């Protein structure tokens, strides 16, 4: 009731001052699709999402160094916790890749992706949303928080997806060779097969162009992977932030609590999904498609 009366008083003062005084409005916090800049170094804009990512990097460095210092043969505390996580994650990776060799190579990357995304996701839901700067633009001023989930910015998720897909292809080149990786997308082998197999198998005239087209689809699929990976993560985390903001706007006390728990869970799940997908892409890239064809060919020739 007091708030209402004070608002009335303010309005009366505003009316009294008339057009001479500027209307003092509360800064508005809008949930934008993009991360807002909080500082500029030349033309480089430091966004709140980038700032949060730096905090995440800093936290991970602190945790990693403290873990390194406390490493003992008989595990205790933080080491015990990380050993449990590491062992569980390693066996899970083994199940996904189906090969200990691939797991050993890809696991460090996948677990790094997991922790980077997880910390970024969780930092966004920390109750530091009140810290920020107010930017005056025209009639109304806008509040820009310092903290925004690193993954609630498409630039971060795009960077991670690009690294995942490009990294997977580099891993594929290292594992099966440049020619085989290239043939996955531009299947020259299939086209060459028309000349070599046409007498034995006339059906190659139909199969080879289809195979070539599948390769082109694979190439498009790589771009789809980037899009799906980045937009899935961004969408989930951003939606979570919007949800929390909406709930806080409805009722600041109590109502956001269940949604905070939900976002903790979503953050964990999204980090997990992203890292598992990275693992899957790396595994697929390291497998030779021709191996299956070569195994199948003798049987096909028999018939």
């Amino acid at each position, binding site marked *: 009731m007091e708030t209402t009366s004070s608002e009335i008083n303010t309005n009366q003062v505003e009316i009294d001052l008339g057009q001479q005084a500027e209307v003092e409005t509360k800064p508005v916090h809008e949930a934008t*699709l993009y991360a807002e800049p909080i500082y500029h170094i030349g033309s480089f804009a430091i966004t709140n999402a980038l700032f949060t990512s730096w905090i*995440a990097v800093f936290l*991970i460095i602190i945790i990693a160094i403290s873990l390194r210092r406390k490493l003992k*043969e008989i595990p205790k505390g933080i080491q015990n916790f990380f050993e449990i996580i590491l062992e569980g994650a390693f066996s899970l990776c083994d199940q996904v890749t189906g090969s200990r060799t691939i797991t050993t190579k890809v696991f460090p990357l996948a677990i790094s992706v997991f922790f980077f995304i997880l910390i970024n996701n969780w930092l966004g839901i920390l109750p530091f949303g009140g810290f920020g700067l107010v930017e005056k633009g025209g009639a109304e001023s806008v509040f820009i928080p310092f903290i925004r989930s690193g993954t609630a910015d*498409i*630039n971060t998720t795009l960077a991670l997806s690009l690294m995942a897909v490009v990294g997977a292809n580099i891993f594929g080149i290292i594992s099966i060779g440049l020619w085989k990786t290239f043939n996955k997308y531009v299947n020259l082998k299939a086209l060459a097969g028309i000349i070599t197999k046409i007498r034995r198998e006339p059906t190659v005239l139909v199969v080879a162009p289809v195979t070539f087209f599948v390769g082109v689809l694979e190439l498009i699929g790589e771009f789809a992977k980037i899009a799906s990976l980045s937009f899935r993560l961004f969408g989930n985390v951003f939606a979570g932030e919007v949800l929390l903001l909406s709930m806080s706007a409805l009722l600041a006390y109590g109502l956001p609590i269940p949604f905070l728990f939900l976002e903790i869970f979503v953050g964990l799940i999204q980090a997990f999904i992203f890292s598992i997908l990275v693992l899957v892409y790396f595994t697929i890239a390291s497998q030779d498609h021709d191996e299956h064809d070569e195994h199948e060919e003798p049987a096909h020739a028999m018939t």
Partner: protein
Amino acid sequence: MDSLITTFHIDWKIIIAQVINFGIVFAVLYMFALKPLKKLMTEREEKIAKGVTDAKENAEMIEKTRKEYDEVLNKARAEAHTIFQEGKRDADAKKAEMLEDAKNEVGVMIASGKKTLESEKAKIIEEAKKEIVSLVVLATEKVLKDNDNTGVNEKTVKQINNM
């Protein structure tokens, strides 16, 4: 594409910055956490595996040693039993032999004793006879002296002496 870039404020500089961020995270995690932790865990795993293998080997060795010990013990027992039996048999034989010898010796001794006794007896009888004769002679002489019948006495003494 342009609208996408404008809507989401896609900025390649921030993308590069985030790539660098992730690179730092990856390097730090790998160098300070994953690599040493993995090494430690592998070493521990190897140590435990070695411990388990050693324990198994030790248990097998103990079992084997116990079996050997039991075998040796049983063998020794059997040998001891055999030796004991043989010894017992030998001792019995020896005992029987010794008993036989003793019996024989006793028999011989008894026989020789008897012989000695017989000869002693004969000797004693002889001596006794001689004593008796001398006593008889002395007694006769004394009797004859008292009767003073020299001719008859001498004749009698001679008869007695001839006896």
